[in-house]
C-alpha cells in the first residue's frame, strides 16, 4: 500500500465520519428544535404581567426580551424588589434597587370607571392591554375588576377623567396576618398561674 492510497483511505474515512455526524446533527437540529429563546420565557415568567409599559417597552414580553439582550433588570415598578431579586438570580447579576426613573413601587390598584360620568368614547377600551374594560360606543363602560392589572394605561386617554385607580381593599381572605393594624398576641398560650 502506497502512501497515496493510505491518504485516500484516511480522507474517505474522515469524510464518511463527517457525513454521518453531519446527518446526525442535522437531524437533531430539526428534531430537537427549540422555539424561541427559553431565557426570554423564564424572564417573562418572573415579570408581573401588568403590561403597563412603565419599563419603556410595550408589554412584559418585550421587556423580557430586552433583559435577555442585556437591558437593566430594575425597570419594573409593579413587580417591585422581590421580582428584581428573581430576575437577578436568573440572569446571574447583582440585584439593583428599583430604577426610580420608571416609577415607584405602589400598592396594588385596579381601575374603576365612575359610570355616571362615562360618555362611552371607547378610548379606554382601546388602551387596555388585557381587554379588561367592557363597553361599546356611546354606552357606559365598566372595568372587569378581576382581569384588571392596574397598569394605569386607561386613565390618560379618558376625555372626561372618569377613571380612578382604586387601591385593592383588604379582605379577610387576603389578610396576611399583619398585626400592625390589630392587637398582637393571637396565640395567647403562655400560662403563668
Amino acid at each position, binding site marked *: 500500500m502506497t502512501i497515496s492510497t493510505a491518504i485516500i483511505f484516511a480522507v474517505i474515512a474522515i469524510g464518511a465520519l463527517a457525513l454521518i455526524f453531519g446527518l446526525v446533527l442535522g437531524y437533531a437540529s430539526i428534531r430537537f428544535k427549540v422555539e424561541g429563546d427559553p431565557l426570554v420565557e423564564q424572564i417573562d415568567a418572573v415579570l408581573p404581567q401588568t403590561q403597563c409599559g412603565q419599563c419603556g417597552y410595550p408589554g412584559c414580553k418585550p421587556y423580557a426580551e430586552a433583559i435577555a439582550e442585556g437591558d437593566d433588570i430594575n425597570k419594573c415598578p409593579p413587580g417591585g424588589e422581590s421580582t428584581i431579586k428573581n430576575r437577578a438570580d436568573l440572569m446571574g447579576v447583582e440585584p439593583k434597587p428599583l430604577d426610580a426613573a420608571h416609577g415607584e413601587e405602589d400598592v396594588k390598584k385596579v381601575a374603576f370607571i365612575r359610570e355616571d360620568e362615562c360618555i362611552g368614547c371607547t378610548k379606554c377600551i382601546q388602551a387596555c392591554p388585557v381587554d379588561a374594560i367592557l363597553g361599546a360606543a356611546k354606552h357606559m363602560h365598566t372595568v372587569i375588576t378581576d382581569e384588571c392589572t392596574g397598569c394605569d394605561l386607561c386613565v390618560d386617554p379618558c376625555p372626561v377623567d372618569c377613571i380612578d385607580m382604586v387601591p385593592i381593599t383588604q379582605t379577610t381572605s387576603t389578610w396576611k396576618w399583619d398585626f400592625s393594624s390589630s392587637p398582637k398576641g393571637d396565640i395567647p398560650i403562655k400560662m403563668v*398561674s
Partner: protein
Amino acid sequence: MYPSFDSIIETLNAGKTFSFPGGVHPDDKKSLSNTSVIKKPSMPELLVVPLRQHIGSDGICCVQVGDTVLKGQVLSQSSSPFSVPVHAPTSGEIVAIAPHVVAHPSGLTEMCISIRPDGKDTWCELSPIANYSDVHSNELIEAICQAGISGMGGAGFPTHIKTSTSKPVEFLILNGIECEPYITSDDRLMRENAWQIRQGLDILTHLIGPEAIIVAVEDNKPEAFEALSIACQDKKEYRVVNVETKYPAGGEKQLIQVITGREVPRNGLPADIGVMMFNVGTCFAIADAILHGKPLIERIVTVTGEAVESPSNFRALIGTPVSHLLDEAKYNPKKQKKPKVVMGGPMMGFTLSDATIPVIKTTNCLLVPAKKELVDDNAERPCIRCSACADACPASLLPQQMFWHAKAKEYDKAEEYDLFDCIECGACAYVCPSEIPLVHYYRQAKAEIRLQRDEKNKAEKAKQRFEARKERLEREKREREEKHRKAKEARLAANKAKEQSAASVDNTNSANEGASQAKDKVAAALARAKAKKAAMQTSANGESHVQPQRDDVNETSTSLENTPSPDDKKAQVAAAIARAKAKKAAQAGQSSQSSQNEQPATEVGAQSAADEKKARIAAAVAKVKAKKAEQNTEDSEEPASQVDEKPALNPADEKKARIAAAVAKAKAKKAAQNAEETTKEPAPPANQADEKKARIAAAVAKAKAKKAAQNAEEATEKSAPPVNQADEKKARIAAAVAKAKAKKAAQNTEVEPEDASLKGASTHVVSSDSQAPDTSRAEPAQEQQRDEKDEKKARIAAAIAKAKAKKAAADKEKESQ
C-alpha cells in the same frame, strides 16, 4: 402501610389506643366552667349574622332591610356547593345589611345582616324528617345543607360536603375530645344532651354506613364519658372510647391517628383512609335539623377566664354580640389591664378587636383572662435551637427550620419543610423557651405563599389576555390591509375594463373619455355620500341647528326628499348655490362683525370677572341667535318645500339666517377671547358666584329666546306661505324681544353693582343685531302658558351654549399657548 381494620378493632377491643407524636400537656383550667349548667342568655337587643361563617364562599343575601323575619327563616342562599345558608336566629326586623366587624383575627369587616328581635321568638314553619331511615340519603344531605350546618369544631367545613363522599367509610368517629384548655362547651353538651348526640349519630350512621362507629372522649371528662356510654348502651356497635389527655388530641388528623393509627396523607382527606369524623356539636345540630327541622341558629359557647365573675356555658344564638355574653357572665373589666377577649381557646384562638363581634357557628369559647393569667408581653427572644418545638410538634415537622425561613421570607424553603402540613395547633409556641410566637410566623408565611400563588395565576391570565389581544389586533390589521388591497385591485381592474371598452367604442379619444368617466364616477360617489350624510342629518335634526353648514346639508336633504326625482338635480343645484352663498355671506358677516366688535372688546378688558360673565352671556345670546336663525330657516323652508314653487326664494332666506348665525358665532368667539385675555390677570374673588349667576342668566335667556322663536314659528305657520319674508321679519322681531327680555331677566337675577357691565355688554351684543326691539307686545301671555314645555328645551339649549363658550375659550387658550 397503615394498620388494617381488623387489627385496629382488636386494639380497640383490648382497650388500647394508638398515639400521635409530640403533644403538650397544658393546665386545662376546665374546672372554671365545667360545672355550670348550660344557660340560655337573655335576648340581646341586636343580632348580627355574618353571611359567611365557614370556609368556602359567601351566600347570596335573600332578604332586604325592613323585612320581618321569623325564627329559622333562611337569610341567604348558597351560591356554590361549598356554601351553606344562614338563618334568622330569632323573629324580628332586619335593620341593616352592611359590613360589620366579624370574628376574624384581622378585625376586618364582612357583610352581615342585623336583626332587631321582636321578643316573640316565633318559629317559621319547620319540616322535620322523623322517619329518616325511609328517606333517600340525598334528601337527608340536602336537609343538612339547608339547615346551614358546617363543622362546629373549629374549621367550619360544610357538613353536607363531608357526608356526601362516595368513598367507603370504615370508621365513623365522633370527636368529643375538646382538648384545648378552658373550653367546656362540648363537655357540657355531652353531659346534658347525650341522647340527642346519640340520635345524631344514628342519622350519620344511616347516611354513611360505616363498618365501625367510635365515640372518642378524653379521659379528663369522665361525666361526659359516662353519659355517652349510657346513651349508646343499647347498641353494641357504638364504641365509646376513652382517649389519653394530650393536646392536640382533638385535631382531626391527630385523633384519627390516636384511634386508628393511620395518618391522613398530605393534601388528602380522612375519607381517603376510610375515616370520617364529626364533632359532637355538629352531631347534635344534625339531629336538630333532621328530627326537629330546626336549622343551626344557636350553639354552646363557654364564657370563661378569671376576669368573669361567673364562668358559664351559654346556649347562645348565632349573631349574639360578644359583649352581651360577657355581661351575662358578669365580666369585670377591673381584673384586666386593658380589655382583652380571646375567641376560641388559649392555644388556637385569637384576640377580638371589637366587643360587638357576633358569635358565629364555630365560636366555642370566649376567654377573658385576668391580668396574670396570660402573658402578653411580646418578649420574643432569639431562637436558641433547643428543638423543644420539634419534640412538641404533633405533625412531626421541624418548627425551628420553618420559623427560620418564614422569618427570612424564604417562603419556598419554608414550603420545602412542609409548612402546609402544619395544623397551627400552637404546641411549638407553647413550649418555646424564647417566647417566639411561632404559629404567627407560619400563618404569615402561609398567607403570603397563597397570595403569591394567586398573583402568579393572575399574572398568567393577564399574559394570556395580553397575547390574545395582540394577536387579535394583528389579525385585524392584516384583514384591513387585505381588504384595501382587494379594493384597489378591483378598482384598477374596473378602470382597465372601462378603458378597454372606451377604446373599443372610440379609439381616437379613449384616454379623455376614460378620465371623464372616472370623474363622473367620483362626482356620483360624492353626491351619494352627501345624500347619505344629509339623510343622517335630517334624522338628527334636533342637533344640527348649531352649525350653519349642517343646516345647509339639512336643507339639501329636505329638498332632496321632497322633490320627485326629475327635480332632484334642480334642487341640488339650488342647494349648492345656497350653500355657496351662505358661506360667502357668513364669511363677510364674520369679518365685518369682528371689526365691529373690536372696540367693545378692548373696552371691557378691565374687570375679568365681569368679562367672563359677559363672555358666557354673549355665548348664550349667540346661541339663541343661531338657533333662531336656524328656526327661521326652517320656517321659511317649510312652506317653500311644501309648495315647491320658489326654490330661489328659499336660498335667499337661508342666506340671511346663515349670516345671522355666523355673526352670532363670531360674537361668541370674540367674547370668549376677551374673557380669556382678561382672566389672565389675577383672578377675582367673586368669580364663582358671578359665573353661576351668568349661567342662570344664560339659561333664562335661552329659554325665553326659544319660546320667542317658537312663537315666531307658529306665527309663520299661520300666515300664508307666499309672504315668507314678512314672516321671517316677524320672527326676528319676536326673537329680539325675547332677547331683550332675557337681558332684563338676567339683570333682575343679579343685584350686585358689577352687573352693570354685564348689562352693557349684553345690550351691546343684542342691539347690534336686532333692529326693532319694541314691536310685538302680545307675546308674554303666550309665553307663560308654554313655560313648562319649554323648560326642558331651554335647559338643553343652555347646556349647548355653555359648551360652545367653553370650547371657544379652550380654543383661544390653545392659540395663545
